[in-house]
């Protein structure tokens, strides 16, 4: 089958980007979207052109590296599927596909379809963990976990941090991501002791990163490749309210970016390769 890929090409964060249209003629319907881009990139390399930059790693839908907009929908039209798992047979022969990177201030563009999602890392670093004392592992089953809590925590833990929720949100809010982490850890008995502090820190970090605010539209859940429910955002709101009520001081620890990279000002990828 044949497709025409209209892809956002942008050399570096500070240059202007535009859509460039590429015909891909020898597409196997069983290829994934990323393999289709691989075929295109081989063509481009043979022609001496710059290949399209896109992020990928496991290609089995569990790492959260890949992801871009296909015809205006994050991860493409198939629900609960990342672009690496989206096979080309879901598109019509001769169809034109519009490939666009995630668009958000907190996700500055690096190149073509790649954006800097380290804002997510900082949200995790601010509180998305459980503090444990080191030493030998505790005996199994010493801490009873209700089956229902384990299931709910597992559902929330399915979040791979791909950023599709931010990309699809009309507010560019990262509430589904942050909520998934807070619900995942807060549901389990191991995470309960740090519940209040975690919610305050992660919410504060999320708000510092320049994401928009959640207005309960729910577009995020429709594109989430792991089908994280809107319930996790309520869990975040609940823990945040509770944490503010319980807190005895006003001190919040957040994570500062180590470099100015995440704001794009010192990012020099192309400048170096050109010289």
């Amino acid at each position, binding site marked *: 089958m044949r497709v025409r890929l209209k892809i956002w090409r942008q050399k570096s964060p500070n240059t202007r980007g535009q859509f460039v249209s590429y015909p891909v003629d020898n597409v196997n319907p069983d290829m994934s979207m990323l393999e289709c881009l691989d075929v295109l990139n081989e063509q481009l390399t043979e022609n001496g052109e710059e290949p399209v930059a896109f992020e990928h790693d496991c290609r089995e839908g569990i790492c959260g590296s890949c992801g871009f907009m296909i015809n205006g929908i994050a991860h493409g039209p198939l629900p609960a599927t990342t672009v690496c798992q989206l096979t080309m047979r879901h598109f019509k022969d001769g169809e034109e596909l519009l490939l666009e990177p995630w668009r958000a201030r907190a996700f500055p563009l690096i190149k073509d379809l790649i954006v800097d999602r380290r804002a997510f890392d900082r949200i995790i670093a601010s509180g998305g963990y459980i503090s444990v004392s080191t030493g030998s592992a505790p005996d199994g089953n010493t801490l009873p976990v209700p089956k229902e809590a384990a299931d709910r925590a597992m559902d929330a833990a399915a979040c791979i941090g791909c950023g599709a929720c931010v990309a699809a949100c009309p507010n560019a809010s990262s509430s589904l991501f942050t909520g998934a982490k807070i619900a995942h850890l807060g549901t389990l008995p191991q995470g309960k002791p740090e519940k209040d502090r975690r919610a305050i820190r992660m919410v504060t970090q999320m708000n510092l990163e320049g994401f928009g605010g959640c207005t309960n539209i729910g577009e995020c859940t429709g594109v989430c490749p792991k089908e994280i429910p809107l319930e996790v955002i309520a869990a975040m709101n609940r823990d945040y309210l509770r944490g503010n009520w319980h807190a005895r001081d006003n*001190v919040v620890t957040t994570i500062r970016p180590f470099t100015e990279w995440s704001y794009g000002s010192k990012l020099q990828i192309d400048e170096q390769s050109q010289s």
Partner: protein
Amino acid sequence: MATTVIGARETRPARFWAATNGKKVVMAITGAILFLFVIGHMLGNLQVFEGPDKLNAYGRFLRIVPEILWTVRIVLLASVILHIWAAVQLAARKIQARPVGYAKHENVVSDYASRTMYWSGPILLAFVIFHLLHLTAGVIHPGGEFVEGDVYHNVVAGFQVWYVSAWYIFSMILLGFHIRHGAWSMFQSVGINHPRYTPILKKAAAVLAVVIVLGYISIPISVLLGLVK
């Protein structure tokens, strides 16, 4: 990555308000107050169908104790101001959060009402200002003289002007959309969501929105049809 301590000097309410989540909690609570007012106001208004005496008596009843009247008015005004203030700041954040827009963006699961809250809200504000000038203050009275205390006459005279009724009906339909989203969304904002009860809340919000719209627009429609005169 380095850690940094913020907010040591900030008061807790200031920090709570600074977070988008805190603003949404404020919007939920003020929205709930306004939602209760909308229901109460509709039930009061429907007394127009029981004739001039009943409605005018209701109008006098509301004004028996000025302290109560003004307490309610101040609470409502504070709710409106906080609700709008939070909405404006969230809207500003929304604009800043995506400086480069999409060439194409499709909505997959969200409903129309939730995406248009930023439109239905400001139009409703314009309506409320007009409505207060029209039927409370009596500054604008397109259908004839404004008679202080004769609520029934003011309502009927106003709604006999077709564009007043049309504006009213249009605004009430937008109010319905606003409630369709807001009436369940306020629970989500304060952290209440349950796979069993939230679908019921959403359906209840839709039903209440329809009931409220029908309740309100029945008045101008009845006046236009000559059922109430």
